[in-house]
């Protein structure tokens, strides 16, 4: 080692010390569990330990994919995510455009607080809110239906309502948050473009249609591709807590994350849930890479790496 390199290393030592706590945390919290993927290929026996347990080859995966659950949870996870992406993007852009058009700073701030509130609420409390509306006996909706002389609906046993309910709740909880991102993008648009358009006689709608929306395109693409990269993951709380883990709703609410949790904690079926877990990690990984590759093709400065 030459002296220059030595000197550089010596100067970097304080930096290594500073980064060490975070480094160790990621090692424990993220990297060691990555190695744990090997569990999916074993017949796990805790008395033997993970490394000494017998190899199971791909049999855990065979079980997983032979069961009808594998198709169902994959379908649900992907379809819900697609719906979430579309609905949230549209609503968030609408909110952002309206906020950008409102002149009064005071009003913008108040409205912004209102739309952000849902994103601050834990999913547990969201499930309380949903219950207050949906409960079969005491819910607000059924109370109103009964008062109007109509039949009440037993939401927690009727799967057909849940796609709409979950899409609504997810949008309610997330749209305000995303609208902040779009609003920031709109505020970054060069004002001169609007002024020039005004001189050319553009109406308000023209300006939105031909300046704002096209200028948001790259933000939409970036955020969408980021979400597409996460399409194999679902918000466990939304799908587990909000439907109150109701067995009657399982076909409409079971996703990969709830399946893994139920397998691990409720059924104690580690081999099956670890296979589902690896399935999620690997496909998820491929999807992130693909999404990033596409982003890079479309607009390289927005790619993650």
């Amino acid at each position: 080692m030459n002296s220059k390199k030595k000197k550089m290393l010596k100067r970097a030592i304080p930096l290594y010390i500073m980064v060490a706590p975070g480094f160790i945390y990621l090692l424990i919290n993220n990297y060691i569990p990555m190695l744990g993927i090997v569990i999916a290929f074993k017949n796990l026996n805790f008395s033997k330990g993970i490394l000494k347990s017998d190899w199971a080859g791909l049999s855990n995966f065979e079980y997983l994919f032979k069961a009808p659950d594998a198709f169902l949870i994959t379908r649900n996870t992907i379809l819900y995510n697609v719906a979430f992406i579309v609905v949230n993007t549209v609503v968030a852009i609408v909110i952002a455009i309206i906020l950008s058009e409102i002149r009064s700073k005071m009003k913008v701030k108040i409205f912004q607080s209102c739309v952000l509130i849902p994103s601050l609420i834990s999913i547990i409390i969201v499930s309380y809110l949903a219950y207050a509306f949906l409960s079969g006996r005491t819910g607000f909706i059924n109370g109103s239906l009964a008062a109007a002389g109509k039949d009440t609906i037993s939401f927690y046993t009727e799967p057909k309502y849940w796609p709409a309910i979950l899409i609504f709740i997810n949008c309610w909880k997330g749209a305000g948050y995303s609208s902040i991102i779009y609003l920031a993008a709109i505020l970054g648009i060069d004002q001169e473009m609007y002024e020039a358009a005004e001189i050319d006689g553009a109406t308000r709608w023209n300006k939105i249609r031909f300046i704002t929306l096209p200028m948001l395109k790259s933000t939409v693409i970036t955020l969408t591709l980021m979400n597409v990269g996460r399409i194999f993951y679902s918000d466990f709380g939304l799908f587990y807590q909000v439907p109150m883990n109701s067995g009657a709703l399982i076909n409409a609410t079971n996703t990969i994350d709830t399946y893994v949790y139920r397998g691990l904690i409720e059924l104690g079926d580690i081999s099956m849930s670890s296979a589902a877990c690896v399935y999620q990690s690997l496909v998820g990984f491929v999807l992130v890479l693909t999404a990033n590759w596409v982003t890079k093709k479309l607009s390289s400065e927005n790619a993650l790496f």
Partner: protein
Amino acid sequence: MVGKGERRYQRMLTVIMFLISLIMVIPLILLVMASITSNNEIVMHGYSFWPKEFSLDAYKYIWNEKAQIFHAYGVTVLVTVIGTAVGTMLTLLYGYVLAQPKFPGKSFLAFYLFFTMLFNGGLVPTYIMYTRYLHLKNSIAALIIPGLLMNAFNVILARTFIQSNVPVALKEAAEIDGASEFRIFGQVALPLCKPIIATVGLFIGLSYWNDWMNGLYYVTDAKLFSIQQLLNNMIKNIEFLSKNANSNINVSSISGGIPQETVRMAIAIVGLLPILLVFPFVQKYFIKGISVGAVKG
């Protein structure tokens, strides 16, 4: 100069936005009203926005049973304070190091962080490691350590901020004065980092306050229940009822005189209130964090 058309347009936008905002907050209004309705009315007529019979029984009940609820509150506060303090520190240190000009190992450290955003082992190995090997089950550490302490998103946020707000010249000047790296971090960089400390602290703090998953996975001991987990356990009781929706169990008859329906809602409010009270004061950091983070994640 504001034209008549413009005024009408502004009024229309305000009305639309008011309606959207109403949808956002209306569930919370129902929650508040439910908590001050008499329990009997809820059992008989369900939740409503304007109850016929007001009652503070739920809050009286909480006050009488304050030991358990305040204990859960204490757990939440303790976990949030420790988690936020330690997490923000780890995040800033990592971000600061990545913001430094070239040094050996920098690109490795960046990749090491970044890769955690792309790939993870998932719940099963994480759960087995924390419970079987690190024996975190039923400890306060189980509420603090898994998952929440530091994440790549916040570190990148901190790095980006430090890169553009802590001038290299300032650091070099301090170096010439003989300051060590630690002193530069503490006395030069940190004072300039107040806005990002607020933003990152806010993100981490909110995730601790709202966390219930660590409780669900790792805690069964009631002494360690956070406010979210307490709420979660109470809703499990509803779950039982809703699963037996056809059997005619009367809610009030099994609750033994406790105004169950309203108490639940009142505790939800108790868990939510601090966030709603603090939010107006920190909103600007929250918004800044979201918009900056998204542009250059």
